[in-house]
């Protein structure tokens, strides 16, 4: 019988950490320290956190943007965003892409870096998409959202056991409120975005009564890396698509 080279994991979460570590020299980048859970499902995008300023656009040649964007992301999968991930061996690259796709992550996007200053706070209200656990659409009808700020996140895919049936299936609440407060915002390369974030999943009236809700939050620190290497790795790892970051 065919079996995986390494063997089958018992827990996807620690397996993914191992897989990601196996393809990088280091173990994690930036810091995320969250606590809480969504109805028993943890949310720990604490393998990698980094940010960058998107200052240039291709139209088709590079030219400065009228408004420079700021981006911060975090994933459970661990990799070094200052290293060109395209140089990984093919299998390792496939492993890392898959680990990112199925594990916890969040992304924050600001339309104008001028917004991003220490002491500022931001809120987005996000709706779950077609894939369960993936909050990928801002609720345009919600009040209290911060102009020019988008938050997205996904809870790791649930690992299915041999007897997994729909009787065990518990969906997430449809809506989530994400709040971010920045205590440090040094956007030059070598600086960092630091602050706290809270992700609160809520149930709508239309949701099943057992839909998972809850709140996860804590501190994060995302070192600012160079735009060119960050964007190269975004392309290589399909992060624009996987982490729902606007180009």
């Amino acid at each position, binding site marked *: *019988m065919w079996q995986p080279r*390494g063997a*089958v994991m018992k827990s996807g979460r620690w397996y993914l950490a191992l897989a990601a570590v196996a393809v990088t020299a280091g173990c994690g980048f930036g810091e995320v320290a969250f606590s809480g859970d969504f109805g028993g499902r943890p949310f720990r995008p604490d393998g990698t956190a980094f940010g960058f300023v998107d200052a240039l656009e291709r139209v088709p040649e590079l030219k400065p943007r009228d408004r420079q964007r700021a981006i911060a992301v975090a994933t459970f999968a661990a990799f070094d965003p200052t290293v060109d991930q395209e140089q990984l061996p093919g299998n390792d690259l496939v492993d890392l892409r898959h*680990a990112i796709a199925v594990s916890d992550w969040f992304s924050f996007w600001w339309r104008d870096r001028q917004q991003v200053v220490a002491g500022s706070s931001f809120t987005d209200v996000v709706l779950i998409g077609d894939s369960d656990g993936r909050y990928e659409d801002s609720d345009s009808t919600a009040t209290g959202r911060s102009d020019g700020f988008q938050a997205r996140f996904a809870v790791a895919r649930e690992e299915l056991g041999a007897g997994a049936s729909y009787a065990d299936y518990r969906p997430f609440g449809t809506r989530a409120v994400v709040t971010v407060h920045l205590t440090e915002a040094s956007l030059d390369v070598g600086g960092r975005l630091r602050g706290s974030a809270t992700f609160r999943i809520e149930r709508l009236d*239309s949701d099943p009564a057992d839909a998972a809700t809850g709140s996860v939050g804590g501190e994060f620190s995302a070192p600012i890396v160079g735009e060119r290497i960050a964007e190269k790795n975004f392309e290589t790892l399909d992060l624009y698509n996987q982490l729902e970051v606007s180009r």
Partner: protein
Amino acid sequence: MRLLPTALVLLAVAGCGYGAVSVEGTFDGERFAPTGTVFAVLDAHVEEPRPGGGIAVIARDDPRLLLFFCQPAIDPDVDFAALSGSEIEELRELVRRGDRVLLRDLPTHATVAGARLVLDDGRADFALLMLAGSAPIAAGDSYADLRPLGRHLSAVLAIERAVLAEKGQLVGALALARDRAADQPANTVTGTVTLQFDAPIVSERIGESNLRVLGY
């Protein structure tokens, strides 16, 4: 270090497949042997987008069965999506290179002991996907050696035993016939292969997820 589930190790050591399949007949001497794995999935629910977002799981009014055969021995009780990315690619490639058959939309009300379900020009009791594996070729092989496979397919599924529940069992025989389509040459490969099978019914959620990972 990751752990290897004991059951999986024992199956691998013993060289067993998943379920049981035996083959009678060939397609003009060409072996067709999706004999390493057979399992069925009772498709009793459908996932639909909820208004406002998210996924709603709805019980089907008309549950149906999927029946999958493939050449390598794989364990459909393992969550393929939880493997590493490269292991998933390896598994997909392994399955793709071998013979495989997928029957979809088998109506559960008609899948009972003694039933005979048919797919031919006049009747479609189920949908059929039948794919021949990719045999290795040698440096000297040319297209002159290549005989086209008959594209006109028909199938008869004879049910001997049906326990249609998760952890249940489907036992029977699937006769697959290849015939020459009107526009195919005279040397087209034709014939009938019959797969005698004993298929465990795996849990719906993992069974469907695994078929999706494999691309079906």
